[in-house]
């Protein structure tokens, strides 16, 4: 993986983490795309009592 690809991957994960954090702050389940980017199974996350 090139340095540029690594950087893009990191910023993509960072964006997903920011959106997911904002969602859970509002007691909402994060977007499926963001969870997928972070490697979090949506089904498992949905079971958490937010």
């Amino acid at each position: 993986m090139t340095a540029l690809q690594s950087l893009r991957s990191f910023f993509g994960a960072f964006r997903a983490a920011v959106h997911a954090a904002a969602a859970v702050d509002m007691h909402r389940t994060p977007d499926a795309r963001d969870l997928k980017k972070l490697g979090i199974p949506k089904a498992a996350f949905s079971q958490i009592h937010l």
Partner: protein
Amino acid sequence: MGAFDFLMQGLATAADPMLLFYALIGVTLGTAVGVLPGIGPALTVALLLPVTYRLDPAGSLIMFAGIYYGGMYGGSTTSILLNTPGESASIITALEGNKMARKGRGGPALATAAIGSFIAGLIATLLLAFLAPTIVKLALVFGPREYFALMVLAFVTVSAAFGDSALRGLTSLFLGLALACVGIDQLTGQARLSFGQAELLDGIEVTTMAVAMFAVGEALFIAGQRDQHDDEVTAVKGSVWMSRSDWARSWKPWLRGTVIGFPIGAMPAGGAEIGTFLSYATEKKLSKHPEEFGQGAIEGVAGPEAANNASAAGTLVPLLTLGLPTSATAAIMLAGFQQFGLQPGPLLFATNPTLVWGLIASLLIANAMLLVLNLPLIGLWVKLLTVPKPWLYAGILLFATLGTIGANPSSVELGMLLGFGVLGYVMRLYGYPIAPIVVGLILGPMAEQQLRRALSISQGDWSYLLHSPIAATLLGIAALALIVPLILRARGKGQVLAQLAGDED
């Protein structure tokens, strides 16, 4: 004197029996509020502000910091045993931790969370101690325009850059800034937005607003939720200690979580949650057992728990060195400092080094206390989880009301508590973030003061704000932080629309 010498002096100060007692109260309270879902360190510190007004400033601030650290420790207990995060920063812990508990491995899950929290807290607090003097030296060159630019950056990141909706975030922020204008103007002595009410001449009390938003608003929101469920506590079976394999799989995630969480906590609006999500993603990518993730992988508990504790220490870096709060809890701690007539920042390190270094050193002691509180006394915290939710929220509302009336016995204050509580409920209902309104209320007057100082130096010339390279850079970063997420969101929507159009074809 170097940072090490200051830290040793601080340890000597923090070893005072009375200060140790305050630290113990803080970490115990913090663990309790971390364990209990629905209340967090921000609300607890806000409720205690009026109570601690007449107490020793050093002890009170040590107690608040202990509450903050303790909250991060305690949140993992509820996440692991109840699948309900005690703190929003412990959500990821619930993902893997509860799965481990259901498989009879609740003990190792709790152990890796507690030990990881201790190691991350220790490393991060030492980093705070060694970085603080350097940042303070840099901050000494800051004048009014640099401070104003820094606050603008904090406003933008808290409200617009790191949120779901820039519009909602900015709306919350400007609401907070408008509320900050209520009261007597510090420079001219004129009343602003007081509508002839004598009680409003002193402005909106930060504690009233914080308690209303975090306690009343949250209680109303939880009560209004349709899917109420009865939480079942998963019993901790077997040993509470970790096996050799657990240690081998945990130590690297602890260190990586610390490295991830600390800088993110120090960023404006970084928050602990972002670090925990990133830590989980990192551990899953690097794990030798990625198939276990989602089924109870210990790395998924170790890394995120370390990240959230490291971010708590990271939050204290800008708070203590620059006087800049980067989270709602830090904003309320800033109000705590101001209550005692203290302004965190480089001058506090110069004028009151005993207090500052005593506070930093006490965090090391508090961290050790938390390890003892959280592992051997786990049974005590589990009993707290059996408190029925209706009783819990009724108790929160009672303490919130009593605390507000105790600090300001006035019907107007009580009316504001209820009014802002309803506002907090409506904001949660429609997805408006709470943190920007609190940060706007606390930082707004400071930003106004710095701006007016800068303009009086320049005799009204606004371009003076851009003549400093530091101020211009900070304002440039703030502009980018506002514009870039908007562009990325617009691109994201464009890609989704294009995909939809393609699907239709």
